[in-house]
Every structure is written in structure tokens, then in C-alpha cells.
């Protein structure tokens, strides 16, 4: 790196912005909702997903083809971003993309737990995180959960998993291991972030995401009325809840809704909260949190044009697109009407 810093962020941001322009627009979503699975696959073949649809077309069909093509394209795009970026930018982006590593580790552990075959596990992985192909292959080849932990020994997940293993052996359920993975991910997400302005914006975005996640978990617990200790699901690093407030509020749905309605997120989530009170439906609330995050990410991308924020904004938009197309395809498969599917989409 030269004395004035490298010009790597400019390069990455330019590429990411070009990709962002290729995401599906509202108009295209409207077309997609009127198509069947086969037509959606053909539509995707004519856009950015061409390579994936062609590569997978002979082995899978229907909605599975769409789903695997989406996952593979997502992985390819995010791997690309990690490939291009260096230094500080890499560190900031990898923090967020590690959530795919966490997801993959959980998938492999669950797969081994239910005795799924290697192929079955493999198609469910999204290779978008920091792990390289070699480590993923070693993960897939591991025959026991102990083996998985050994493979992850030199990663950030190693120590936490080792610590959680006795608890798993004792109880025979996966919760301790999965919690260990999640907690490691969130611990690293916010630790030692820099102090410059774009990074602070990034940090407040991550905080909002953690807050929403806590709020969702609490709402689900409060509504199901299950006798689970909410503190066990609490994720550190948020602004809105502390461990104690969450534990207290998760017992009472009305108080919880009121608490969120008085928080700094009231403007974004207000209508959804009212709906939650009236219709008792969590779906609207979860969509509202998604839409609020997406709007926030959109805004992020314009304030500091050459920094990590446009990249994160793209990553969010891409994830959303993948989820939207999956929702359309799965909805069609299940025979939902166009209007019902449109409700499932999160579009700005």
C-alpha cells in the first residue's frame, strides 16, 4: 500500500455499483409474479443468472433449479467482492459475510446430526463466506460433529465450539453448538470497528440489525408463550434491548410492542406494529424490519460514496432479491395467488 492508501475502495465500489444496476426492478418483479417456475427459470437465464442456470439445468428442475441457481449466484457474487477487496475494506465486508460461514457450519452440523448424505448437505451450502473450498470440502468429509469441530480448530469458531461440545454431549440437542456459532459471529461483527465516519454508519446499521433480530426473537417468544428463557437467545451489541429488559418484555406482548413503538425505530416500524396489535400477525412485522433495513442500507450507499457502505448496501439488496425470487417461485409452487405472493415480497 502506498503512503496515501490504496485506491482499492474506488475499484470495488465501481464494480459493485455496476452490479447493483443489474438487479431486478419493480417492473421485472411484476412480470415474475405472473410466471410459472419454468418461465422464471427461463427469465433468469436471460439475465445475470445465465451461467448458474446452464450449469445446474441438467441436474435439477423446477423450483429446485431456481433455488440452487440463486444460491450459487449469490455465493459467486459475494466471493467476488471479497476477492477484489483488500486491507481494511476486506475486513469490514468479511465481518458481515461471515454470517454465511456461520450458516454453513450450522448446516453441516445439522446434516451430520440427522445423518444426511454428503450430497444433500452440499447443495444446501451457500459458499459466500470466508471459508475456502478446501475447508468446505473437509467440513463435508467430516463424519462426526467432533470431526467438524476439529476442522474448524484454527478458525474463530474453534474455541467456542469446543467449549459448547460437552453441553451438547450431555443434552444431545444442537442448541448449545448453534448458539456458540451464532454468538461467535456476532461477537466478531462489532469488535474493534474503526472510528471514521463511514464505519460509524456501518456500525449503526449493524446495531439496527441486531436490534431487529432481538425484537423478532422476543416477539416470537412472547407470542408462542413457550417456557424458554429469552436471555438465552439474546444477542449482544444492540442498542434497544439489554439482557434484562428483553427477558422482562418477552413475557408480555403488549408491553413489548409499546416498548418498540417508543424506540428510535418507531417511524419505520409504526404501521407494522399497529397491524401486529390488530391482526396478531408477525409476518407484517418481519417484513417491516426487512424493509426498514433495506431502506437504511439504500440510504447508506449514498452518503459516503467511496467507503464500505455502498458495498454493504449492494450485499443487502442482492440478498433481498434472492429472497424475493425464491418467495415468488415457492409461492407459485404452492399455488398462492399473485396478490398473496406480492405481499410476500419486500420491495422498496
Amino acid at each position, binding site marked *: 500500500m502506498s*503512503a*496515501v492508501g490504496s485506491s*482499492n475502495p474506488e475499484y470495488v*465500489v*465501481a*464494480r459493485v455499483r*455496476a452490479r447493483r444496476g443489474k438487479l431486478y426492478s419493480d417492473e421485472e418483479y411484476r412480470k415474475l409474479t405472473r410466471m410459472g417456475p419454468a418461465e422464471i427459470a427461463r427469465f433468469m437465464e436471460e439475465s445475470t443468472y445465465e451461467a448458474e442456470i446452464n450449469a445446474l439445468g441438467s441436474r435439477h428442475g423446477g423450483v429446485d433449479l431456481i433455488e440452487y441457481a440463486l444460491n450459487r449466484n449469490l455465493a459467486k457474487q459475494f466471493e467476488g467482492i471479497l476477492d477484489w477487496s483488500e486491507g481494511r475494506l476486506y475486513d469490514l465486508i468479511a465481518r458481515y459475510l461471515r454470517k454465511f460461514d456461520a450458516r454453513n457450519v450450522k448446516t453441516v452440523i445439522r446434516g451430520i446430526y440427522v445423518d444426511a448424505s454428503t450430497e444433500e448437505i452440499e447443495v444446501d451450502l451457500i459458499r459466500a463466506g470466508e471459508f475456502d473450498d478446501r475447508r468446505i470440502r473437509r467440513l463435508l468429509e467430516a463424519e462426526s460433529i467432533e470431526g467438524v469441530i476439529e476442522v474448524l480448530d484454527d478458525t474463530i469458531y474453534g474455541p467456542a465450539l469446543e467449549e459448547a461440545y460437552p453441553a451438547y454431549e450431555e443434552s444431545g440437542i444442537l442448541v448449545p453448538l448453534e448458539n456458540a456459532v451464532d454468538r461467535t459471529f456476532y461477537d466478531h461483527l462489532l469488535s474493534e470497528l474503526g472510528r471514521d465516519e463511514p464505519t460509524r454508519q456501518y456500525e449503526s446499521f449493524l446495531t439496527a440489525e441486531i436490534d431487529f433480530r432481538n425484537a423478532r426473537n422476543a416477539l416470537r417468544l412472547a407470542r408462542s408463550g413457550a417456557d424458554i428463557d429469552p436471555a438465552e437467545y439474546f444477542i449482544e451489541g444492540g442498542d434497544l434491548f439489554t439482557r434484562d429488559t428483553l427477558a422482562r418484555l418477552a413475557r408480555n406482548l403488549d408491553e413489548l410492542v409499546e416498548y418498540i413503538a417508543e424506540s428510535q425505530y418507531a417511524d419505520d416500524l409504526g404501521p407494522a406494529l399497529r397491524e401486529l396489535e390488530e391482526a396478531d400477525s408477525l409476518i407484517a412485522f418481519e417484513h417491516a424490519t426487512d424493509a426498514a433495513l433495506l431502506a437504511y442500507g439504500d440510504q447508506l450507499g449514498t452518503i459516503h460514496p467511496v467507503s464500505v457502505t455502498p458495498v454493504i448496501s449492494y450485499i443487502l439488496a442482492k440478498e433481498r432479491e434472492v429472497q424475493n425470487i425464491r418467495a415468488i417461485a415457492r409461492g407459485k409452487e404452492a399455488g398462492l395467488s399473485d396478490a398473496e405472493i406480492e405481499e410476500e415480497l419486500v420491495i422498496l
Partner: protein
Amino acid sequence: MFEATSELGNVVLQEGQGTLTNPSAAAALAVGLAALGAGYAERGIGSAAVGAMAEDEGLFVNGLILTVLPETLVILALVVVFLV
């Protein structure tokens, strides 16, 4: 690099009766500094342009034009050479 530039400026100004008493030398310095500035500006633009081209080859012409735009700084600075 910026620190180095301002230091250079200080040295030049302090030795008032030294180098800068010669107009040609001063003009040469002006052009040189302008070129440095142009180079610094092109650094970011160039890398962004290459990134955009990697995604879409049709952007080659636009990228090239935008990359060399700061070059006008040097051309304007060159006017100084003819004025002194």
C-alpha cells in the same frame, strides 16, 4: 504525501531569494506540482473506471475520458510557462 507536499512548499517559500528568484524555475515547479495533483486525482478515477469496465466493456470510452479529465490541470498549468 500531502504532508510532504506542504513541507516542500515551506522550504521553497523560506528560501525566498534562492530558487524562486529564477522565474523559469518557479514556472517549472508550478507545472510539476499541477502534474502531481492531476496524478493524484486520476488515481481514484482510474481504478474506479477499470472496475466499471470489468463489469461492462461498453464503458471503456467513458472510463477513458473521465480518467484523463484531471489532465486539464496540467494543461492549464502549462499556460504559466508561456506567461513568464
